[in-house]
């Protein structure tokens, strides 16, 4: 794909992420709600790790901590060897909710990162490339309220990708897409990740998606989230849905999630 090639001009290689004994809790009207319990996770540079876990177990919270939006109550997070003390454009998040800025056009939304860092003037072409990548060229001047849910989610993805991150943090980025677009975006994500070599941390509810994309699947327990198991997946890319090995892995992961009886 032309756009993919264009976005890879200046390849930012992935950097390692280390999560060391991270615990977190929220205070809900004075009573603490433990959400993360002693999470230890190492992600190698350029690795694609998927997090699976029951709803409300703390996956999004973990991603917020990795992004540096909140400090963990206990433990440390190291990115590229340095402690994470705040957000940084090398670690970009695609949130569960697209949350586009309603007063900016799609193009304006995608350029936010470049604009915030003063790079828009010199690198404006990357905005168009990112839009083409997610299939939104032609909608550059449209306002978010004129987009469908899936288009908004794709715009949010473009807004992250345009920054050429070293770590791409994805919180169910394809959850709102129709199944056809989701399939296309899944293979786009894989090819993008392969070309650019960024490190990726993906939260998803879709076991098949986790197995298709990730080289390692981390299964979390109920809240407070602990790491229950890790399933390595060394199948070569591009992977095929019909692969029998994939079906085996899927069975394994589902049983880890407590769904073995029905499957």
């Amino acid at each position, binding site marked *: 794909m032309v756009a993919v090639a264009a976005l890879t001009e200046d390849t930012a290689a992935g950097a390692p992420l280390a999560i060391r004994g991270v615990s977190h809790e929220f205070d809900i009207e004075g009573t603490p709600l433990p959400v993360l319990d002693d999470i230890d996770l190492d992600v190698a540079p350029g690795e694609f790790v998927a997090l699976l876990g029951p709803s409300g177990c703390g996956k999004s919270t973990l991603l917020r901590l990795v992004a540096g939006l909140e400090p963990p109550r206990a433990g440390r997070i190291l990115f590229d060897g340095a402690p994470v003390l705040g957000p*940084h454009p090398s670690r970009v*998040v695609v949130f569960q909710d697209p*949350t586009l*800025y309603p*007063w*900016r056009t799609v193009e304006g939304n995608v350029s*936010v990162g470049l604009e*915030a860092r003063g790079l828009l003037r010199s690198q404006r072409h990357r905005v168009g490339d990112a839009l083409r990548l997610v299939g939104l060229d032609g909608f550059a001047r449209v306002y978010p*309220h*004129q987009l469908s849910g899936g288009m908004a989610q794709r715009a949010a993805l473009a807004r992250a990708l345009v920054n050429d991150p070293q770590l791409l943090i994805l919180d169910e980025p394809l959850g709102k897409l129709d199944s056809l677009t989701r399939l296309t975006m899944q293979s786009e994500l894989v090819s993008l990740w392969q070309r650019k070599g960024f490190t990726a941390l993906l939260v998803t509810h879709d076991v098949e998606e986790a197995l298709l994309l990730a080289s390692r699947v981390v299964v979390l327990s109920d809240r407070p989230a602990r790491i229950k198991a890790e399933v390595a997946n060394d199948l070569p890319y591009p992977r095929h849905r019909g692969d029998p090995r994939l079906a085996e892995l899927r069975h394994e992961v589902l049983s880890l999630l407590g769904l073995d009886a029905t499957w």
Partner: protein
Amino acid sequence: MTSETIREEPAAYLAGSAARAPSFARVAAAGLAWLGAGALTYLLPEQGDWPYTAAYAALLAAIGLALILAGILGRVLPRLDERLRVSSPRLVAVAVLLTVWQLVTAKYEILPMPFFPPPQAILEVFLDDWPKLGESIWHSGWLLAGGYVIGAVAGFLTGVSIGWSRAAAYWVHPVLRFVGPLPATAWLPIAFFVFPSSWSASTFLVALATGFPVAILTWSGVASVNSAYYDIARTLGARPRFLILRVAVPAAMPHVFVGLFMGMGASFAVLVVAEMLGVKAGLGWYLQWAQGWAAYANMYAALIVMALAASGLITLLFRLRDRLLAWQKGLVRW
């Protein structure tokens, strides 16, 4: 591009479906109504002596003729035709109202006379007293513009700073809570002896009346910004300056405009009172002066001018909002 959304209000649909009569007939009916109003005004005998009756009747007739002419032009100009078609029932209603007014005043004096002048008396004021009226408009306009702009800017800056900074909120919020609800007119006696001129005092009062609602609404707008907007901008490398100017302020804009509308209403009220009590110029003063001389027609003339000016300014503000907030859906039309 499939991005066009239909932004028609239900009311527009209703008006459209009710108005399926051939448009020229409707416009011609409106024109005839105005011509009829002119004829009645001219032909019926009057109780008093109104020097401008003929001129006024001619004006009505001219409007009637212009409407008929526009109806003919409308056959080749579809946009004009549409506007005329929609407004012709209202135009008929206005002609009827003007005729009733004419009948109950000049023609039959059903309403007590010096207090309810006929329309031609008001036309007389516009034609004979326009220098004084024009000067009053000019004065009021300047006073309002100065005070409103100062107040809006000060209120906006105050609102953004207390919405953004805890320290600013700590110090400014109590002041705003204590002083804000006080009607700006209550400051009037003090303002007029503290300020060097009545003009600067009035500017201050108008600014105060405008600034308070703008500050409160800007503040609430900034405070209610979806925190995810900040999270996203921060992960993309935004610094506080960007967060304030490019996230908080645009997100708060719909609130700011509510404040600007409220401030405009408040500023009109203060302006009129200040002109009546202190400044010896402007439309408020003109009203006061007309009352002193029992010149009731002049009062009505000033009221009409005020209504037109106020409505025009509100329209202007709506236009500005529609431009700046084009990204919002479901905006109320003025």
